[in-house]
């Protein structure tokens, strides 16, 4: 028996799918925000004087980077209620994405901090810049510029990873797709189209990040 592809179900479900895209972006944005907070705190703790704190951060980074996100989200799904956090699946997914992205953010931000030489800061003072100016123009902006490509790449990775949050039925594009699939049994058509929705999301993000980079970071280094 032949099978005829029917993409009309996808067309009818397009409004729901587009809302799923919004859900995915929201999930990624919230996860990335949490990841940045964990990243900054983690970098500070990574270089602290307390050896146990340094070991804790290193251990956290290694564990997160060497285990699958799916296992992490399952673990958190059951662990969070035990510490009194009874959250809905979407909030759980945000925490899981934040924890996962945070481990990578620690490494990225640490690289940015290390890329600023002490001599540059001293040169800034020698030129008569005051403290705020030194921080803004000599520390923050070059550091941001140094980590911008990895950080935006990480954001796109996080957006794609968020599809795994459908495993705990968080509200995002893949779980919307799964619902439509179970209503229509058009598995291939639905997932094929949704794959290209993700592709559109990541290409738009890449384009947006490139525009921002061109606007703020296109000055010569030497």
């Amino acid at each position, binding site marked *: 028996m032949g099978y005829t592809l029917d993409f009309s179900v996808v067309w009818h479900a397009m409004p729901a799918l587009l809302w799923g895209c919004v859900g995915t972006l929201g999930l990624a944005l919230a996860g990335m925000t949490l990841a940045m907070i964990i990243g900054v705190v983690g970098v500070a703790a990574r270089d602290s004087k307390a050896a146990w704190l340094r070991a804790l951060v290193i251990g956290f980074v290694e564990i997160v980077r*060497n*285990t699958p*996100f799916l296992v992490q989200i399952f*673990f958190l799904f*059951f662990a969070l209620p035990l510490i009194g956090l009874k959250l809905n699946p979407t909030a759980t997914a945000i925490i899981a994405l934040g924890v996962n992205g945070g481990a990578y953010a620690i490494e990225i931000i640490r690289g940015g901090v290390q890329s600023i030489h002490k001599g540059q800061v001293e040169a800034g003072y020698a030129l008569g810049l005051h403290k705020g100016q030194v921080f803004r123009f000599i520390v923050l902006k070059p550091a941001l510029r140094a980590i911008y490509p990895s950080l935006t790449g990480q954001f796109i990775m996080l957006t794609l990873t968020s599809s795994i949050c*459908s*495993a705990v039925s968080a509200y995002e594009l893949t779980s919307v797709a799964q619902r439509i699939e179970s209503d229509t049994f058009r598995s291939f058509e639905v*997932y*094929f189209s949704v794959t290209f929705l993700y592709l559109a999301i990541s290409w738009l993000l890449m384009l947006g990040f490139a525009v921002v980079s061109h606007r703020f970071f296109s000055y010569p280094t030497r």
Partner: protein
Amino acid sequence: MTPHFGLPEFGFLLRGLQWTVLLTVVAFVGGCTAGLAVALLRTCGHKGVEWITRIYIGIFQGTPLLLQLFVVYYGLALTGLKLDAFVAVAIGFTVNASAFLGEIWRGAIQAVPRGQTEAAMALGLHYSSRMRDIVLPQAIRISLPATIGFLVQLIKGTSLAAIVGFIELARAGQIVSNQTFQPLLVFGVVGAMYFILCWPLSWWGSRMEARLALASQR
């Protein structure tokens, strides 16, 4: 009565681990073969071919692995072939690996100094000898840390086969967790198993990267 997490359950997880390893090996070997072809096509010098392989790589890098698996899994089902679940997911991971390894090796091939290719041409070596004897041996050295990094990604990625229902380590963990009602213990053990598999590779990869960086400074 619900069983507690004991030796039989641990054994079940170990059998899942076996499937994870097997899936990784099959996808990595297949991905290396196809990835080499992708990398060579991507650097072949023909504009049209390079553009097509670039799109191919871009599609796999810009979409979630989970959706790629879904498309391959349900797409293969449409062809009417009765494929084993293992074969279907192995094909999915292989195609994904071919794109990522292709891109890693594309970078490595282009990182080999141009003078090497030019010298080989001046010596009258033809394309296959130039690649096999001059460019690829150097490119492999350069690409090794990133290749190992991708292998770790692949091991972690095989956990997604659980979502399409193939019983590997993550799916075995879900099953045992549902039977024993001890999710934290079970997923803790499952996580530890993945960690034992991935961490030595990560460590090896970063050590090699540091050594290569040191060598290039000289």
